[in-house]
Protein backbone atom coordinates (compact mmCIF):
# COMPACT_ATOMS: atom_id res chain seq x y z
CA UNK A 1 0.00 0.00 0.00
CA UNK A 2 1.10 3.28 -0.76
CA UNK A 3 1.82 5.48 2.06
CA UNK A 4 1.17 9.03 1.50
CA UNK A 5 3.52 11.43 3.08
CA UNK A 6 1.61 14.25 4.18
CA UNK A 7 3.32 17.51 4.44
CA UNK A 8 1.54 19.99 6.39
CA UNK A 9 2.28 23.67 5.99
CA UNK A 10 3.54 23.44 9.49
CA UNK A 11 6.59 21.54 8.38
CA UNK A 12 7.80 24.66 6.66
CA UNK A 13 9.30 27.48 8.49
CA UNK A 14 10.10 30.80 6.97
CA UNK A 15 13.74 31.75 7.16
CA UNK A 16 14.57 34.84 9.03
CA UNK A 17 14.89 37.77 6.68
CA UNK A 18 18.51 38.43 7.52
CA UNK A 19 19.67 34.97 6.68
CA UNK A 20 18.11 35.10 3.31
CA UNK A 21 20.10 38.23 2.53
CA UNK A 22 23.27 36.83 3.94
CA UNK A 23 23.37 34.14 1.36
CA UNK A 24 23.46 36.63 -1.47
CA UNK A 25 25.85 38.96 0.20
CA UNK A 26 29.41 39.34 -1.12
CA UNK A 27 31.84 38.89 1.67
CA UNK A 28 34.04 41.84 0.78
CA UNK A 29 32.69 45.35 1.18
CA UNK A 30 31.50 46.81 -2.08
CA UNK A 31 34.11 49.12 -3.54
CA UNK A 32 33.92 51.92 -6.01
CA UNK A 33 36.50 52.11 -8.79
CA UNK A 34 38.65 54.61 -6.85
CA UNK A 35 38.38 52.74 -3.60
CA UNK A 36 39.50 49.61 -5.30
CA UNK A 37 42.43 51.39 -6.93
CA UNK A 38 43.45 52.90 -3.61
CA UNK A 39 43.29 49.50 -1.96
CA UNK A 40 45.56 48.01 -4.56
CA UNK A 41 47.91 50.96 -4.50
CA UNK A 42 48.41 50.48 -0.78
CA UNK A 43 49.66 46.98 -1.42
CA UNK A 44 52.54 48.34 -3.53
CA UNK A 45 55.28 49.26 -1.06
CA UNK A 46 57.44 51.16 -3.52
CA UNK A 47 54.52 53.31 -4.57
CA UNK A 48 53.55 54.09 -0.99
CA UNK A 49 57.08 55.13 -0.04
CA UNK A 50 57.27 57.24 -3.20
CA UNK A 51 53.97 58.87 -2.41
CA UNK A 52 55.30 59.62 1.06
CA UNK A 53 58.49 61.18 -0.34
CA UNK A 54 56.55 63.27 -2.82
CA UNK A 55 54.19 64.48 -0.12
CA UNK A 56 57.15 65.47 2.06
CA UNK A 57 58.81 67.27 -0.85
CA UNK A 58 55.64 69.10 -1.73
CA UNK A 59 55.07 70.08 1.90
CA UNK A 60 58.66 71.28 2.37
CA UNK A 61 58.78 73.05 -0.98
CA UNK A 62 55.46 74.82 -0.67
CA UNK A 63 55.61 75.15 3.11
CA UNK A 64 58.81 77.12 2.72
CA UNK A 65 56.97 79.92 0.97
CA UNK A 66 56.69 82.18 4.06
CA UNK A 67 60.35 81.63 4.92
CA UNK A 68 62.07 81.68 1.57
CA UNK A 69 60.78 84.62 -0.41
CA UNK A 70 62.25 87.10 -2.80
CA UNK A 71 63.97 89.03 -0.02
CA UNK A 72 65.77 85.91 1.23
CA UNK A 73 66.79 84.82 -2.24
CA UNK A 74 68.13 88.17 -3.27
CA UNK A 75 70.41 88.57 -0.27
CA UNK A 76 73.98 87.73 -1.13
CA UNK A 77 77.19 87.51 0.83
CA UNK A 78 80.02 87.19 -1.67
CA UNK A 79 82.48 86.78 1.20
CA UNK A 80 80.98 83.37 1.85
CA UNK A 81 80.96 82.35 -1.81
CA UNK A 82 81.40 78.72 -2.83
CA UNK A 83 81.61 77.17 0.62
CA UNK A 84 81.04 73.41 0.71
CA UNK A 85 78.48 71.70 2.90
CA UNK A 86 78.92 71.88 6.65
CA UNK A 87 76.51 70.18 9.00
CA UNK A 88 76.85 70.49 12.77
CA UNK A 89 77.84 67.21 14.36
CA UNK A 90 79.31 65.71 11.21
CA UNK A 91 82.80 67.07 11.64
CA UNK A 92 84.35 63.71 10.91
CA UNK A 93 82.97 63.30 7.38
CA UNK A 94 85.04 65.08 4.78
CA UNK A 95 82.73 66.90 2.43
CA UNK A 96 80.12 67.56 5.09
CA UNK A 97 82.39 69.32 7.54
CA UNK A 98 83.18 72.39 5.52
CA UNK A 99 86.20 70.89 3.85
CA UNK A 100 86.70 70.86 0.10
CA UNK A 101 89.19 68.87 -1.89
CA UNK A 102 91.49 71.42 -3.52
CA UNK A 103 94.28 70.00 -5.64
CA UNK A 104 94.14 66.65 -3.86
CA UNK A 105 94.05 67.82 -0.23
CA UNK A 106 91.09 68.64 1.97
CA UNK A 107 91.01 72.31 2.86
CA UNK A 108 88.72 73.85 5.43
CA UNK A 109 87.08 76.53 3.35
CA UNK A 110 85.09 77.95 6.27
CA UNK A 111 88.21 78.73 8.28
CA UNK A 112 89.86 80.23 5.21
CA UNK A 113 86.96 82.54 4.49
CA UNK A 114 86.41 83.63 8.08
CA UNK A 115 83.12 81.81 8.40
CA UNK A 116 84.03 79.38 11.15
CA UNK A 117 80.82 80.11 13.01
CA UNK A 118 78.59 79.46 10.00
CA UNK A 119 76.91 76.25 9.01
CA UNK A 120 75.54 75.89 5.48
CA UNK A 121 74.04 72.43 5.25
CA UNK A 122 74.35 72.19 1.48
CA UNK A 123 77.07 74.80 1.09
CA UNK A 124 76.77 78.09 -0.77
CA UNK A 125 76.71 79.28 -4.37
CA UNK A 126 78.95 81.80 -6.10
CA UNK A 127 77.27 84.74 -4.38
CA UNK A 128 77.46 83.15 -0.95
CA UNK A 129 73.77 82.26 -0.84
CA UNK A 130 72.67 79.13 0.97
CA UNK A 131 72.36 76.28 -1.49
CA UNK A 132 69.87 74.51 0.75
CA UNK A 133 67.47 77.43 0.50
CA UNK A 134 67.96 77.61 -3.23
CA UNK A 135 67.37 73.91 -3.69
CA UNK A 136 64.13 74.05 -1.70
CA UNK A 137 62.94 77.02 -3.73
CA UNK A 138 64.13 75.38 -6.94
CA UNK A 139 62.19 72.24 -6.10
CA UNK A 140 59.09 74.35 -5.65
CA UNK A 141 59.49 75.99 -9.04
CA UNK A 142 60.23 72.69 -10.74
CA UNK A 143 57.18 71.10 -9.10
CA UNK A 144 55.00 73.95 -10.30
CA UNK A 145 56.34 73.57 -13.82
CA UNK A 146 55.73 69.83 -13.66
CA UNK A 147 52.18 70.38 -12.45
CA UNK A 148 51.42 72.86 -15.20
CA UNK A 149 52.79 70.56 -17.87
CA UNK A 150 50.82 67.64 -16.50
CA UNK A 151 47.72 69.77 -16.48
CA UNK A 152 48.09 70.64 -20.16
CA UNK A 153 48.92 67.04 -20.96
CA UNK A 154 45.79 65.78 -19.27
CA UNK A 155 43.42 68.42 -20.53
CA UNK A 156 44.54 69.40 -24.00
CA UNK A 157 46.63 66.33 -24.82
CA UNK A 158 44.18 63.61 -23.79
CA UNK A 159 41.10 65.35 -25.13
CA UNK A 160 42.78 66.19 -28.41
CA UNK A 161 44.05 62.66 -28.83
CA UNK A 162 40.71 61.03 -28.07
CA UNK A 163 38.74 63.36 -30.31
CA UNK A 164 41.20 62.95 -33.14
CA UNK A 165 41.31 59.17 -32.85
CA UNK A 166 37.60 58.74 -32.26
CA UNK A 167 36.35 60.97 -35.06
CA UNK A 168 38.87 59.72 -37.59
CA UNK A 169 38.61 60.73 -41.22
CA UNK A 170 38.84 64.38 -42.12
CA UNK A 171 38.76 65.69 -38.56
CA UNK A 172 41.61 63.40 -37.62
CA UNK A 173 43.58 64.46 -40.66
CA UNK A 174 43.29 68.15 -39.93
CA UNK A 175 44.08 67.66 -36.26
CA UNK A 176 47.15 65.60 -37.06
CA UNK A 177 48.43 68.24 -39.49
CA UNK A 178 48.09 70.84 -36.74
CA UNK A 179 50.18 68.73 -34.40
CA UNK A 180 52.74 68.19 -37.11
CA UNK A 181 53.08 71.91 -37.64
CA UNK A 182 53.34 72.67 -33.95
CA UNK A 183 56.03 70.11 -33.44
CA UNK A 184 57.88 70.97 -36.65
CA UNK A 185 58.72 74.53 -35.72
CA UNK A 186 61.65 74.10 -33.38
CA UNK A 187 60.88 75.04 -29.79
CA UNK A 188 63.84 77.33 -29.70
CA UNK A 189 62.38 79.56 -32.40
CA UNK A 190 59.03 79.76 -30.63
CA UNK A 191 60.75 80.55 -27.39
CA UNK A 192 63.04 83.26 -28.74
CA UNK A 193 60.05 84.94 -30.32
CA UNK A 194 58.20 84.84 -27.06
CA UNK A 195 60.92 87.01 -25.63
CA UNK A 196 59.31 89.78 -27.64
CA UNK A 197 55.88 89.48 -26.16
CA UNK A 198 56.43 88.17 -22.68
CA UNK A 199 58.62 89.07 -19.77
CA UNK A 200 60.90 86.33 -18.53
CA UNK A 201 59.36 84.38 -15.73
CA UNK A 202 56.64 81.92 -14.92
CA UNK A 203 54.17 83.27 -17.48
CA UNK A 204 56.45 82.71 -20.43
CA UNK A 205 57.42 79.25 -19.23
CA UNK A 206 53.78 78.29 -18.90
CA UNK A 207 53.00 79.73 -22.32
CA UNK A 208 55.87 77.83 -23.92
CA UNK A 209 54.75 74.61 -22.27
CA UNK A 210 51.15 75.21 -23.27
CA UNK A 211 52.15 75.57 -26.90
CA UNK A 212 54.30 72.55 -27.29
CA UNK A 213 54.25 70.07 -24.42
CA UNK A 214 51.03 68.19 -25.07
CA UNK A 215 51.61 67.06 -28.65
CA UNK A 216 53.33 63.81 -27.73
CA UNK A 217 50.52 62.87 -25.37
CA UNK A 218 47.94 63.67 -28.03
CA UNK A 219 49.74 61.54 -30.57
CA UNK A 220 50.03 58.57 -28.24
CA UNK A 221 46.42 58.81 -27.13
CA UNK A 222 45.24 59.01 -30.71
CA UNK A 223 47.14 55.88 -31.66
CA UNK A 224 45.71 53.98 -28.70
CA UNK A 225 42.22 55.27 -29.35
CA UNK A 226 42.41 54.01 -32.92
CA UNK A 227 43.13 50.58 -31.49
CA UNK A 228 40.50 50.68 -28.78
CA UNK A 229 37.84 52.01 -31.11
CA UNK A 230 37.52 48.62 -32.77
CA UNK A 231 37.49 46.65 -29.51
CA UNK A 232 34.37 44.60 -28.84
CA UNK A 233 33.33 46.39 -25.67
CA UNK A 234 33.53 49.76 -27.34
CA UNK A 235 31.54 48.50 -30.29
CA UNK A 236 29.03 47.07 -27.85
CA UNK A 237 28.71 50.35 -26.03
CA UNK A 238 28.25 52.09 -29.35
CA UNK A 239 25.61 49.69 -30.45
CA UNK A 240 23.80 50.24 -27.19
CA UNK A 241 23.69 53.91 -28.04
CA UNK A 242 26.03 55.28 -25.41
CA UNK A 243 26.98 58.87 -26.08
CA UNK A 244 30.59 59.33 -27.27
CA UNK A 245 31.46 61.40 -24.21
CA UNK A 246 30.30 58.61 -21.93
CA UNK A 247 32.18 56.02 -23.93
CA UNK A 248 35.30 58.14 -23.73
CA UNK A 249 35.04 58.56 -19.99
CA UNK A 250 33.83 55.08 -19.09
CA UNK A 251 35.68 52.89 -21.53
CA UNK A 252 38.48 54.75 -23.22
CA UNK A 253 40.02 56.68 -20.34
CA UNK A 254 40.39 53.70 -17.98
CA UNK A 255 41.93 51.65 -20.76
CA UNK A 256 44.17 54.53 -21.72
CA UNK A 257 45.21 55.13 -18.14
CA UNK A 258 48.34 53.07 -18.51
CA UNK A 259 49.55 55.17 -21.43
CA UNK A 260 48.37 58.38 -19.80
CA UNK A 261 50.25 57.73 -16.60
CA UNK A 262 53.45 56.65 -18.28
CA UNK A 263 53.31 59.58 -20.65
CA UNK A 264 52.73 61.93 -17.73
CA UNK A 265 55.74 60.50 -15.98
CA UNK A 266 57.61 61.28 -19.18
CA UNK A 267 56.20 64.79 -19.37
CA UNK A 268 57.34 65.71 -15.87
CA UNK A 269 61.09 65.37 -16.43
CA UNK A 270 60.75 66.77 -19.94
CA UNK A 271 58.98 69.82 -18.56
CA UNK A 272 61.56 70.27 -15.83
CA UNK A 273 64.37 70.03 -18.36
CA UNK A 274 62.56 72.30 -20.78
CA UNK A 275 62.37 74.88 -18.03
CA UNK A 276 66.11 74.54 -17.43
CA UNK A 277 66.69 74.96 -21.15
CA UNK A 278 64.55 78.11 -21.19
CA UNK A 279 66.38 79.57 -18.23
CA UNK A 280 69.57 78.73 -20.02
CA UNK A 281 68.68 80.85 -23.01
CA UNK A 282 67.29 83.65 -20.90
CA UNK A 283 63.53 83.46 -20.78
CA UNK A 284 63.08 80.98 -17.99
CA UNK A 285 62.95 81.78 -14.34
CA UNK A 286 64.78 85.02 -13.80
CA UNK A 287 67.12 85.80 -10.93
CA UNK A 288 66.97 85.74 -7.97
CA UNK A 289 64.43 82.97 -8.39
CA UNK A 290 65.80 79.60 -9.33
CA UNK A 291 64.83 76.08 -10.27
CA UNK A 292 66.44 72.68 -10.08
CA UNK A 293 67.31 72.89 -13.75
CA UNK A 294 69.07 76.22 -13.30
CA UNK A 295 70.96 74.96 -10.27
CA UNK A 296 72.05 71.85 -12.16
CA UNK A 297 73.16 73.84 -15.14
CA UNK A 298 75.18 76.21 -12.97
CA UNK A 299 76.59 73.33 -10.98
CA UNK A 300 77.72 71.38 -14.02
CA UNK A 301 79.99 74.19 -15.09
CA UNK A 302 81.96 74.15 -11.85
CA UNK A 303 81.79 70.43 -11.43
CA UNK A 304 85.54 69.85 -11.44
CA UNK A 305 86.18 72.25 -8.62
CA UNK A 306 82.95 72.44 -6.67
CA UNK A 307 81.30 69.07 -7.29
CA UNK A 308 78.76 69.53 -4.48
CA UNK A 309 77.07 72.36 -6.42
CA UNK A 310 76.05 69.82 -9.04
CA UNK A 311 75.52 66.73 -6.91
CA UNK A 312 73.01 68.13 -4.41
CA UNK A 313 70.48 69.41 -6.93
CA UNK A 314 71.10 66.30 -9.03
CA UNK A 315 70.31 64.02 -6.08
CA UNK A 316 67.16 65.95 -5.24
CA UNK A 317 66.03 65.79 -8.86
CA UNK A 318 66.77 62.06 -9.11
CA UNK A 319 64.91 61.24 -5.90
CA UNK A 320 61.96 63.28 -7.12
CA UNK A 321 61.97 61.56 -10.51
CA UNK A 322 62.31 58.06 -9.08
CA UNK A 323 59.45 58.74 -6.69
CA UNK A 324 57.24 60.07 -9.46
CA UNK A 325 58.00 57.07 -11.62
CA UNK A 326 57.47 54.43 -8.95
CA UNK A 327 54.25 56.12 -7.93
CA UNK A 328 53.27 56.24 -11.56
CA UNK A 329 53.89 52.51 -11.90
CA UNK A 330 51.82 51.87 -8.83
CA UNK A 331 48.99 54.05 -10.09
CA UNK A 332 49.04 52.34 -13.42
CA UNK A 333 48.78 48.91 -11.85
CA UNK A 334 46.02 50.18 -9.63
CA UNK A 335 43.91 51.87 -12.27
CA UNK A 336 44.37 49.80 -15.37
CA UNK A 337 41.45 47.38 -15.73
CA UNK A 338 43.65 45.03 -17.72
CA UNK A 339 45.88 44.28 -14.77
CA UNK A 340 42.94 43.71 -12.44
CA UNK A 341 43.28 40.01 -11.81
Amino acid sequence: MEEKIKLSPDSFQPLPREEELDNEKIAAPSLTFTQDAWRRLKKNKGAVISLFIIVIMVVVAFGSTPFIDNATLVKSAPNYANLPARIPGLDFINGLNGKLKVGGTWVNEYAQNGASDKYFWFGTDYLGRSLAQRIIYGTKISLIVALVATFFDLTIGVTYGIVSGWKGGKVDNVMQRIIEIISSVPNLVIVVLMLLVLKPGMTSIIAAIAISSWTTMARMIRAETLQLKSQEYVLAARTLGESPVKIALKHLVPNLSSIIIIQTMYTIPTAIFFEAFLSFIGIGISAPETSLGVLLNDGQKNFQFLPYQMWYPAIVLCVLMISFNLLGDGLRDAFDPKTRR
Partner: protein
Amino acid sequence: MRKYLLKRILYMVLTLFLVATITFFLMKLMPGTPYSNQEKMTTAQIKIMNEQYGLNKPVWEQYVIYIFDMLHGDLGTSFQYSNQAVSYLISSRIGPSAQLGFQAMVFGLFFGIIIGSVAAINHNTWIDTTATVVSIIGKSVPNFVLAVLLQYYIALKLGWFPIADWGSFSYTVLPTIALGVGPLAETARFIRTGMVDVLNSDYIELARAKGLSKFGIVYHHALRNSLIPLVTLIGPYTVALMTGSMVIENIFSIPGIGEQFVKSILTNDYPTIMGVTMLFSVGLVLIILLTDIVYGIIDPRIRLAGNGD
Protein backbone atom coordinates in the same frame (compact mmCIF):
# COMPACT_ATOMS: atom_id res chain seq x y z
CA MET B 1 48.03 51.65 -49.94
CA ARG B 2 49.39 53.72 -52.81
CA LYS B 3 46.48 56.09 -52.67
CA TYR B 4 46.97 56.48 -48.95
CA LEU B 5 50.65 57.21 -49.44
CA LEU B 6 50.01 59.78 -52.12
CA LYS B 7 47.53 61.50 -49.91
CA ARG B 8 49.92 61.53 -47.00
CA ILE B 9 52.72 62.98 -49.10
CA LEU B 10 50.41 65.69 -50.29
CA TYR B 11 49.59 66.58 -46.71
CA MET B 12 53.27 66.52 -45.91
CA VAL B 13 54.03 69.11 -48.53
CA LEU B 14 51.19 71.23 -47.20
CA THR B 15 52.54 70.95 -43.66
CA LEU B 16 56.02 71.95 -44.75
CA PHE B 17 54.63 74.89 -46.66
CA LEU B 18 52.79 76.09 -43.58
CA VAL B 19 55.85 75.61 -41.40
CA ALA B 20 57.93 77.64 -43.85
CA THR B 21 55.33 80.38 -43.86
CA ILE B 22 54.94 80.54 -40.11
CA THR B 23 58.67 80.47 -39.46
CA PHE B 24 59.29 83.11 -42.06
CA PHE B 25 56.87 85.58 -40.56
CA LEU B 26 57.90 84.79 -36.98
CA MET B 27 61.46 85.47 -38.01
CA LYS B 28 60.51 88.87 -39.30
CA LEU B 29 59.33 89.72 -35.80
CA MET B 30 62.68 88.90 -34.27
CA PRO B 31 64.51 91.86 -32.79
CA GLY B 32 67.78 93.23 -34.10
CA THR B 33 69.55 93.27 -37.42
CA PRO B 34 71.93 90.76 -38.92
CA TYR B 35 74.69 93.35 -39.13
CA SER B 36 77.15 93.41 -36.31
CA ASN B 37 78.32 96.93 -36.84
CA GLN B 38 75.34 98.90 -38.04
CA GLU B 39 75.97 102.08 -36.03
CA LYS B 40 79.22 102.66 -37.87
CA MET B 41 77.92 102.04 -41.38
CA THR B 42 76.74 104.79 -43.67
CA THR B 43 73.15 104.83 -44.82
CA ALA B 44 74.35 104.16 -48.35
CA GLN B 45 76.12 101.02 -47.20
CA ILE B 46 73.14 99.80 -45.25
CA LYS B 47 70.91 100.45 -48.23
CA ILE B 48 73.18 98.47 -50.50
CA MET B 49 73.46 95.64 -47.98
CA ASN B 50 69.70 95.52 -47.56
CA GLU B 51 69.38 95.34 -51.33
CA GLN B 52 71.95 92.57 -51.54
CA TYR B 53 70.10 90.50 -48.98
CA GLY B 54 66.72 91.54 -50.33
CA LEU B 55 65.74 93.10 -47.02
CA ASN B 56 64.59 96.36 -48.61
CA LYS B 57 61.53 94.82 -50.22
CA PRO B 58 58.14 94.58 -48.51
CA VAL B 59 57.86 91.54 -46.28
CA TRP B 60 55.33 89.73 -48.46
CA GLU B 61 57.58 90.12 -51.48
CA GLN B 62 60.53 88.76 -49.53
CA TYR B 63 58.28 85.86 -48.61
CA VAL B 64 57.32 85.09 -52.18
CA ILE B 65 60.94 85.28 -53.27
CA TYR B 66 62.03 83.06 -50.42
CA ILE B 67 59.48 80.37 -51.19
CA PHE B 68 60.27 80.55 -54.90
CA ASP B 69 64.01 80.20 -54.29
CA MET B 70 63.49 77.43 -51.80
CA LEU B 71 61.53 75.43 -54.34
CA HIS B 72 64.55 75.77 -56.59
CA GLY B 73 66.85 74.51 -53.88
CA ASP B 74 68.31 77.91 -53.04
CA LEU B 75 68.23 78.71 -49.35
CA GLY B 76 70.06 82.03 -49.66
CA THR B 77 73.38 83.09 -48.20
CA SER B 78 74.35 83.21 -44.57
CA PHE B 79 74.75 86.53 -42.76
CA GLN B 80 77.13 85.14 -40.22
CA TYR B 81 79.54 83.59 -42.71
CA SER B 82 79.77 86.14 -45.45
CA ASN B 83 79.09 84.78 -48.93
CA GLN B 84 78.57 81.22 -47.67
CA ALA B 85 75.50 79.53 -49.16
CA VAL B 86 73.16 78.19 -46.51
CA SER B 87 72.79 74.95 -48.43
CA TYR B 88 76.56 74.48 -48.28
CA LEU B 89 76.59 75.33 -44.58
CA ILE B 90 73.91 72.76 -43.92
CA SER B 91 75.36 70.05 -46.09
CA SER B 92 78.80 70.42 -44.54
CA ARG B 93 77.38 70.28 -41.03
CA ILE B 94 74.66 67.67 -41.38
CA GLY B 95 76.97 64.64 -41.48
CA PRO B 96 78.14 64.55 -37.86
CA SER B 97 74.67 65.36 -36.55
CA ALA B 98 72.98 62.70 -38.62
CA GLN B 99 75.56 60.10 -37.66
CA LEU B 100 75.31 61.00 -34.00
CA GLY B 101 71.52 61.04 -34.04
CA PHE B 102 71.36 57.70 -35.81
CA GLN B 103 73.87 56.07 -33.48
CA ALA B 104 72.12 57.44 -30.42
CA MET B 105 68.75 56.19 -31.69
CA VAL B 106 70.10 52.70 -32.44
CA PHE B 107 71.95 52.62 -29.12
CA GLY B 108 68.88 53.76 -27.21
CA LEU B 109 66.43 51.44 -28.93
CA PHE B 110 68.65 48.38 -28.89
CA PHE B 111 69.67 48.51 -25.25
CA GLY B 112 66.31 49.90 -24.22
CA ILE B 113 64.50 46.92 -25.75
CA ILE B 114 66.88 44.47 -24.14
CA ILE B 115 66.70 46.04 -20.69
CA GLY B 116 62.93 46.47 -20.95
CA SER B 117 62.33 42.88 -22.02
CA VAL B 118 64.58 41.45 -19.34
CA ALA B 119 62.77 43.54 -16.75
CA ALA B 120 59.34 42.42 -18.00
CA ILE B 121 60.22 38.73 -18.11
CA ASN B 122 61.52 38.97 -14.57
CA HIS B 123 58.53 41.04 -13.54
CA ASN B 124 58.52 42.02 -9.88
CA THR B 125 61.93 40.63 -9.07
CA TRP B 126 65.09 42.48 -8.10
CA ILE B 127 66.18 42.44 -11.74
CA ASP B 128 63.04 44.32 -12.64
CA THR B 129 63.52 46.86 -9.84
CA THR B 130 67.16 47.44 -10.76
CA ALA B 131 66.31 47.92 -14.41
CA THR B 132 63.52 50.32 -13.47
CA VAL B 133 65.66 52.41 -11.14
CA VAL B 134 68.54 52.52 -13.62
CA SER B 135 66.28 53.65 -16.41
CA ILE B 136 64.64 56.29 -14.22
CA ILE B 137 68.03 57.66 -13.26
CA GLY B 138 68.95 57.69 -16.93
CA LYS B 139 65.85 59.75 -17.56
CA SER B 140 66.39 62.03 -14.57
CA VAL B 141 69.91 63.12 -15.32
CA PRO B 142 69.94 65.86 -17.95
CA ASN B 143 72.16 64.94 -20.87
CA PHE B 144 74.40 67.95 -20.35
CA VAL B 145 75.26 66.68 -16.88
CA LEU B 146 75.89 63.20 -18.19
CA ALA B 147 78.06 64.57 -20.97
CA VAL B 148 80.19 66.50 -18.50
CA LEU B 149 80.57 63.44 -16.27
CA LEU B 150 81.50 61.15 -19.15
CA GLN B 151 83.97 63.67 -20.48
CA TYR B 152 85.65 64.12 -17.12
CA TYR B 153 85.78 60.57 -15.85
CA ILE B 154 85.92 58.40 -18.96
CA ALA B 155 87.84 60.68 -21.29
CA LEU B 156 90.08 62.78 -19.06
CA LYS B 157 90.68 60.52 -16.06
CA LEU B 158 90.64 57.12 -17.73
CA GLY B 159 91.66 58.26 -21.17
CA TRP B 160 89.54 55.62 -22.93
CA PHE B 161 88.02 57.97 -25.47
CA PRO B 162 88.91 61.40 -26.86
CA ILE B 163 87.74 64.39 -24.79
CA ALA B 164 86.20 66.35 -27.63
CA ASP B 165 86.40 67.00 -31.35
CA TRP B 166 85.22 64.90 -34.28
CA GLY B 167 87.02 62.22 -36.25
CA SER B 168 87.13 58.44 -36.12
CA PHE B 169 84.49 56.26 -34.48
CA SER B 170 86.08 56.55 -31.05
CA TYR B 171 85.20 60.25 -31.04
CA THR B 172 81.53 59.41 -31.39
CA VAL B 173 81.25 56.98 -28.49
CA LEU B 174 80.80 59.35 -25.57
CA PRO B 175 78.47 61.78 -27.35
CA THR B 176 76.38 58.84 -28.54
CA ILE B 177 76.00 57.54 -25.02
CA ALA B 178 75.22 60.98 -23.60
CA LEU B 179 72.61 61.55 -26.28
CA GLY B 180 71.23 58.01 -26.35
CA VAL B 181 70.63 57.43 -22.64
CA GLY B 182 67.39 59.42 -22.68
CA PRO B 183 65.81 57.30 -25.45
CA LEU B 184 67.28 54.19 -23.84
CA ALA B 185 65.59 54.84 -20.52
CA GLU B 186 62.37 55.76 -22.26
CA THR B 187 62.39 52.67 -24.42
CA ALA B 188 63.15 50.38 -21.51
CA ARG B 189 60.20 51.77 -19.56
CA PHE B 190 57.81 51.47 -22.47
CA ILE B 191 58.89 47.99 -23.44
CA ARG B 192 58.65 46.82 -19.85
CA THR B 193 55.12 48.14 -19.30
CA GLY B 194 53.90 47.03 -22.70
CA MET B 195 55.37 43.61 -22.30
CA VAL B 196 53.99 43.07 -18.80
CA ASP B 197 50.55 43.84 -20.25
CA VAL B 198 51.03 41.52 -23.17
CA LEU B 199 52.50 38.70 -21.09
CA ASN B 200 49.33 38.77 -19.02
CA SER B 201 47.01 38.52 -22.00
CA ASP B 202 45.05 35.50 -23.17
CA TYR B 203 46.90 34.78 -26.36
CA ILE B 204 50.15 34.44 -24.47
CA GLU B 205 48.44 31.96 -22.16
CA LEU B 206 47.37 30.11 -25.25
CA ALA B 207 50.87 30.17 -26.68
CA ARG B 208 52.15 28.85 -23.38
CA ALA B 209 49.54 26.17 -23.37
CA LYS B 210 50.60 25.20 -26.88
CA GLY B 211 54.04 24.63 -25.44
CA LEU B 212 55.94 27.36 -27.24
CA SER B 213 59.39 28.05 -25.85
CA LYS B 214 59.83 31.01 -23.58
CA PHE B 215 62.02 32.73 -26.14
CA GLY B 216 59.49 32.03 -28.85
CA ILE B 217 56.74 33.60 -26.81
CA VAL B 218 58.75 36.66 -25.94
CA TYR B 219 60.11 37.14 -29.41
CA HIS B 220 57.11 36.32 -31.57
CA HIS B 221 54.25 37.55 -29.49
CA ALA B 222 55.22 39.73 -26.61
CA LEU B 223 57.95 41.80 -28.22
CA ARG B 224 56.10 42.37 -31.44
CA ASN B 225 53.10 43.67 -29.63
CA SER B 226 55.01 45.81 -27.19
CA LEU B 227 56.89 47.45 -30.02
CA ILE B 228 53.72 49.08 -31.28
CA PRO B 229 53.56 51.98 -28.84
CA LEU B 230 57.29 52.40 -29.26
CA VAL B 231 56.92 53.22 -32.93
CA THR B 232 54.90 56.30 -32.11
CA LEU B 233 57.70 57.42 -29.83
CA ILE B 234 60.29 57.55 -32.59
CA GLY B 235 58.96 60.91 -33.75
CA PRO B 236 59.33 62.53 -30.32
CA TYR B 237 62.72 60.83 -29.93
CA THR B 238 63.86 62.50 -33.11
CA VAL B 239 62.81 65.86 -31.74
CA ALA B 240 64.56 65.12 -28.45
CA LEU B 241 67.72 64.10 -30.29
CA MET B 242 67.62 67.27 -32.37
CA THR B 243 67.33 69.45 -29.27
CA GLY B 244 69.78 67.28 -27.37
CA SER B 245 72.30 67.56 -30.13
CA MET B 246 72.48 71.33 -29.60
CA VAL B 247 73.83 70.77 -26.11
CA ILE B 248 75.92 67.68 -26.79
CA GLU B 249 77.57 69.10 -29.89
CA ASN B 250 78.44 72.16 -27.88
CA ILE B 251 80.08 70.20 -25.06
CA PHE B 252 81.97 67.80 -27.32
CA SER B 253 82.89 70.48 -29.88
CA ILE B 254 81.27 68.59 -32.74
CA PRO B 255 80.80 70.47 -36.02
CA GLY B 256 77.11 69.62 -36.24
CA ILE B 257 73.94 71.34 -37.30
CA GLY B 258 72.40 71.76 -33.82
CA GLU B 259 75.32 73.75 -32.59
CA GLN B 260 75.19 75.88 -35.72
CA PHE B 261 71.48 76.47 -35.21
CA VAL B 262 71.93 77.98 -31.75
CA LYS B 263 74.68 80.19 -33.07
CA SER B 264 72.48 81.34 -35.95
CA ILE B 265 69.69 82.32 -33.62
CA LEU B 266 72.06 84.30 -31.45
CA THR B 267 73.48 86.15 -34.44
CA ASN B 268 70.14 86.77 -36.22
CA ASP B 269 71.33 84.79 -39.22
CA TYR B 270 67.82 84.57 -40.73
CA PRO B 271 68.57 82.52 -43.84
CA THR B 272 70.40 79.89 -41.80
CA ILE B 273 67.69 79.76 -39.15
CA MET B 274 65.09 79.27 -41.90
CA GLY B 275 67.19 76.65 -43.62
CA VAL B 276 67.82 74.61 -40.51
CA THR B 277 64.21 74.93 -39.38
CA MET B 278 63.09 73.56 -42.73
CA LEU B 279 65.62 70.77 -42.50
CA PHE B 280 64.40 69.79 -39.04
CA SER B 281 60.80 69.95 -40.21
CA VAL B 282 61.39 67.82 -43.30
CA GLY B 283 63.21 65.28 -41.16
CA LEU B 284 60.46 65.20 -38.60
CA VAL B 285 57.58 65.01 -41.05
CA LEU B 286 59.28 62.20 -42.98
CA ILE B 287 59.85 60.27 -39.79
CA ILE B 288 56.23 60.69 -38.76
CA LEU B 289 55.10 59.41 -42.15
CA LEU B 290 57.47 56.47 -41.90
CA THR B 291 56.36 55.55 -38.41
CA ASP B 292 52.73 55.67 -39.49
CA ILE B 293 53.50 53.26 -42.31
CA VAL B 294 55.50 50.99 -40.06
CA TYR B 295 52.72 51.18 -37.52
CA GLY B 296 50.34 49.80 -40.10
CA ILE B 297 52.71 46.99 -40.94
CA ILE B 298 53.36 45.79 -37.42
CA ASP B 299 49.91 46.19 -35.99
CA PRO B 300 47.38 44.22 -38.00
CA ARG B 301 44.48 45.99 -36.29
CA ILE B 302 45.48 49.39 -37.61
CA ARG B 303 45.95 48.38 -41.20
CA LEU B 304 42.29 48.57 -42.09
CA ALA B 305 41.75 51.85 -40.35
CA GLY B 306 44.82 53.24 -42.05
CA ASN B 307 43.56 52.27 -45.47
CA GLY B 308 40.17 53.71 -44.83
CA ASP B 309 41.69 57.03 -43.91
